[in-house]
């Protein structure tokens, strides 16, 4: 599944934050390429620059220097509105704290990106339902976040990330708020998506979670310390608990 084209090209990217009079350098000359179909884990201690790199990869922030080409498009100089459109069309986000809209049904939550893409109501509903089926929540369409477990909420968030059929999923500590069993469920789901061809970049500080990725990038002091490709450990839970895995795999 690797080698199907260059998706991310980051060249000598630097990021400097200005906090009052003090300048903080978060990234120094980071260069990184990610091919379509890779499952990359970015690791590092807090303050290593992994979150900053993630934000730049996710088009939530712009680099102060260097270039960032996403699927061949230079996004480093885009306006806020243009970046919003790129995020909408090409990227899907999964957050540590799920970030679902409270008192809003799963279908509505998943349909949110479609809303900003201008997809009409009924298409939106249908596509959101499809995405929820894909993550194994076909029976929870009308549930509100407060009526679901953490793992289910994170799966709704993954469905929301998938619904625009993005080129890349960015997962920021996707298992950070989950117990080990539920973490395994989520990693299984992410690996299924990866096997089906999705490119995933995941930030984590847990090395056992990073083992499920096919490539691990370790960051320290705003630089890439190491970058290793290796065989991903296979995540699996009892298939009784994970009907979605079969569904996606089939």
């Amino acid at each position, binding site marked *: 599944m690797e080698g199907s084209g260059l998706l991310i090209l980051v060249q000598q990217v630097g990021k400097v934050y200005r906090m009052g009079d003090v300048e903080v350098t978060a990234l120094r000359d980071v260069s990184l390429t990610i091919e379509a179909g890779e499952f990359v884990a970015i690791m590092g201690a807090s303050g290593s620059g992994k979150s900053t790199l993630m*934000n730049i990869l996710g088009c*939530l922030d712009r680099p102060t220097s260097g270039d960032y080409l996403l699927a061949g498009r230079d996004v480093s100089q885009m306006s806020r*509105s243009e970046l919003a459109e790129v*995020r909408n069309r090409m990227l899907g*986000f999964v957050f540590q704290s799920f970030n679902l809209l409270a008192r809003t049904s799963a279908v509505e939550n998943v349909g949110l990106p479609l809303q900003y893409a201008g997809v009409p109501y009924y298409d939106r509903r249908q596509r959101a339902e499809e995405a929820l089926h894909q993550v194994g929540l076909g029976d929870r369409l009308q549930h509100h976040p407060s009526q679901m477990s953490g793992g289910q909420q994170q799966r709704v968030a993954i469905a929301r990330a998938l619904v625009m059929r993005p080129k890349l999923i960015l997962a920021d500590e996707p298992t950070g708020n989950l117990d080990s069993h539920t973490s395994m469920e989520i990693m299984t789901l992410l690996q299924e998506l990866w096997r089906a061809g999705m490119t995933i970049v995941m930030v984590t500080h847990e090395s056992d979670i990073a083992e499920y990725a096919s490539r691990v990038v370790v960051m320290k002091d705003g630089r890439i310390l190491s970058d290793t490709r290796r065989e991903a450990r296979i995540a699996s839970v009892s298939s009784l608990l994970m009907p979605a895995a079969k569904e996606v795999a089939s």
Partner: protein
Amino acid sequence: MTSLETLRVAVYALLRNKLRSFLTTLGVIIGVSAVIAMVAIGEGAKVQVEQSFASMGANLLIVQSGTTSTGGARGGFGSLPTLTWEDLKAIQTEIPSVRYAAPVLRATAQVLTEDQNWTTSVTGTTPEYFEIRNWPVARGALFSQSEIDGGAKVALLGQTVVDKLYGSYVDPVGQMVRIMNVPFQIVGVLAKKGQSSMGQDYDDAVFVPQTTFQAKIQGGLQKYIAGLIFVGATSSETTARAQAQITNLLRDRHHIQPGADDDFSIRNLTEMASAQQEGTETMTTLLASIAAVSLLVGGIGIMNIMLVSVTERTREIGLRMAVGAKPRDILAQFLVEALTLSLAGGFLGAGLGVVSAYRLAFQFNWPTLVRPDIILVAVGFSALVGVGFGLYPALKASRLDPINALRFE
């Protein structure tokens, strides 16, 4: 995002906090309804003033004789007759802006029927008087010129006098009444005119030809008019001109030297009416501005709640931005929320305002007039308040940095 979509999202967000949305709207509801009710009261008062002056007579000037001065004690206007019948004729014929002029001679007298009596005001005048005062007969007819020339003993009764003497359902035309022991035949009954702005009943009056009045009721001076002259100008625009022309004419006729005081006075009812109207307009403006202040306070309430809402929903805003909301989508969402609150307040307030205006009219017997244009203005103003006070919170929301917003606790 389409505007309908934005509206749907805004209404959803507001419905998630029903009580808070309602309380926020309440400020605008009270403001708008207060504006509408206050203006309705002011306009009602204005119309009442207009009507009472209109019933006095259109474009009316009242010419009065001068004053006496005996031993230092000065009588009021009318205490010395200076106006002559010749003056009246001159006013009628020489001034083009005068349409009608009529003498008004008044006395208080007892009016008797066979079994009833009533003391009322008896006025000697000519048919022009009823034209000036725009006062038609309900039954019978006005007196004719020949009846005036011949000093016929005929009388016109006001409705109140008819009620007192005959009761409400009797047609007295053709019956005889005695005024100062002189028998008069009733030739007509005047239409009901109501009260003056001072509460005087216009219908409590009897009218007889001016010649008959002089001969039978109150004799007096042959050459002078022992009373007033009512003048009707051709239009409201010419009233002031007619006043100036009559002044010049009478000064000339009375040989008054330049610089000397007039020996007569002219009251311009149109001027008095407009002065009183200005008074009610000032009142309306005052009431409306106090109400507008409450609308403004309602707007500040919206701004306050929108600011709280933006802070509370910082993470939501961050998420929306992350999944593709542009700054202007966020701006539109919060602006539409503020606009929805204020417009809902505007419409509910308009309803409440109209209801309370009618309620006040009914409860306190106040004249109120609900003007549709005021409703439009008030609702429009509430929309303006929504946009005005919603803009800052919406801008604040749209300028949030998605990274910080997502991390906000």
